[in-house]
């Protein structure tokens, strides 16, 4: 309640056209729309700890995050990928990792799919489980709705375009995906690894398939060996100072771990 009053008073302050605003410390972050919701949440917690700081988060894609950090338009850039060789002039700080796991029903006899098989299933070239040694049953393909970062990572890894994917079900959030797969023994889908691992270990009838021979687990996402994963990076041009340094340290600390998990990403801390 008190916080609300402070906000209200602050808003009125701004409305009155007072120039006090410039006395506030402001931290601007721009870039990846995958990281933006996470950084917004971390930013809110950071603002609560530092009442005179405002964290401003803007999206526009990883490329914008890199460009803005390089040109100094943003204090910190956000990029949902590792830095390229041509970006060696920048510094990257990983705050979490994003991993996507393929899931099938627990009773499905198939225990492994090659990358080529996954591509064939998602483009409608394989339509029956018996082609992969499974039951003689049609495959129900579950895809994600447009705009989700899991979709982006999945398409990117398998070099697919969303226009060629032939899905029977399109889902929104991870839980809906897991319920869909658990409810139909012939489905295949993909969701954030954190959610799938939690549900599978709590008796939900789904199982995670390995990708490229690597078991799908948050541990393998954390240590970087799981291929269907990517780092979520904060990018700066120079060694961060002052506020930017504090913010990056906070985002990488155990204090931010709960926020990371809540957004179905994998924390880098233990």
């Amino acid at each position, binding site marked *: 309640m008190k916080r609300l009053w402070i906000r209200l008073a602050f808003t009125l302050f701004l409305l009155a056209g007072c120039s006090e605003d410039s006395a506030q410390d402001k931290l601007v972050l721009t870039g990846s*729309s995958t990281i933006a919701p996470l950084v917004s949440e971390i930013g809110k917690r950071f603002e609560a700890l530092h009442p005179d700081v405002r964290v401003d988060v803007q*999206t526009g894609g990883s490329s914008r995050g890199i460009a803005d950090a390089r040109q100094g338009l943003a204090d910190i850039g956000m990029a949902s990928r590792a830095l390229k060789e041509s970006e060696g002039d920048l510094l990257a700080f990983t705050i979490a990792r994003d991993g996507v796991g393929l899931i099938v029903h627990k009773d499905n006899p198939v225990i492994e799919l090659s990358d080529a098989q996954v591509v064939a299933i998602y483009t409608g070239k394989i339509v029956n489980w018996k082609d992969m040694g499974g039951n003689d*049953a*049609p495959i*129900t393909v579950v895809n994600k*709705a*447009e*705009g*989700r*970062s899991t979709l982006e990572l999945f398409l990117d890894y398998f070099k697919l*375009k*969303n*226009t060629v994917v032939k*899905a*029977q*079900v*399109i*889902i*929104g959030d991870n839980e*809906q995906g897991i*319920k*869909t797969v658990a*409810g*139909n023994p*012939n*489905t295949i889908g993909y969701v954030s690894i954190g959610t799938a691992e939690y549900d599978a270990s709590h008796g939900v009838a789904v199982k995670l398939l390995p990708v490229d021979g690597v078991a799908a687990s948050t541990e393998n996402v954390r240590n970087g060996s799981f291929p269907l994963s990517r780092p979520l990076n904060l990018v700066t041009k120079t060694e961060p100072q002052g506020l930017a340094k504090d913010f990056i340290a906070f985002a990488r600390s155990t204090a931010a771990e709960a926020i990371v998990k809540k957004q179905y990403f994998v924390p880098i801390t233990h």
Partner: protein
Amino acid sequence: MSRSRTDIVLVWSLRGCAALAGAIVLLIVVFLVLESLPALQHVGLARFFTDASWQPSEGLYNLTPMLWGTLFAMAGAVLVATPLGVLSAMFCHYYAAPVVARFYRRLIELLAGIPSVVYGLWGLVVLVPLIGSLHPPGPSLLAGIAILTIMILPTIALMADAALANVPAHYLRGASALGLSRWATIRGVVFPAAKSGLFTGVILETGRAIGETMAVLMVCGNVVQTPANVFEPIRTLTANIALEMAYALGDHRAALFVSGLVLMAVIVVLVAGAERISKGRVYG
């Protein structure tokens, strides 16, 4: 003098309430138009109906399959629920013993109070696997129609119930004085007298069927396509907004507001059509 002053206060407060209700509708329309303007300017209205498909990330924005999805799901549910609802009200009024009727009415009211997400969850874990075992994949137009039917059934059943209760008692006494049978009374006297009430019920259930989002999103499969049969998955306009709004930016976001605008247009057409059919006495 004091009496007329009370009247003036009453009249003006009623006018105020009416203006408020009207203004809210207008504000919603203005808001929808403003938010969808960027897409209408960049993409143009025609392309929302002529593009190859709905792929906002690749600049394709065809809403037609979702419009069909919405209309099919709605029409299917209304066609099944209306006779069921009217028959249930008839049973309640003219055939059931008073104790049974009272109990039955409470039951229908209870049905009306169940939140839609509960129906959706039940549909997802029970109905969809059931349909899937009959005819894969499972999430389908049929599942959507079934869930919507259950959801709008209480609306039409209760509205029809109220409409039948409003039939003047002397009509019924007159009918029995003429020696009409129960069915002849219902067909020849009750239905014509309750017609506008029943029609209002149909309008309300249709509105509810169009607007329903969560339950439909959970059972329909959400694939953007014009369904060839009831076992194919569909995506409705409401589900489209709910699915993609959280992560949409720029033109994609504005295109979702266009979905809302199209939905609004469908409802306007429906209400206008209903007004025409009933010659302006829908709510009379």
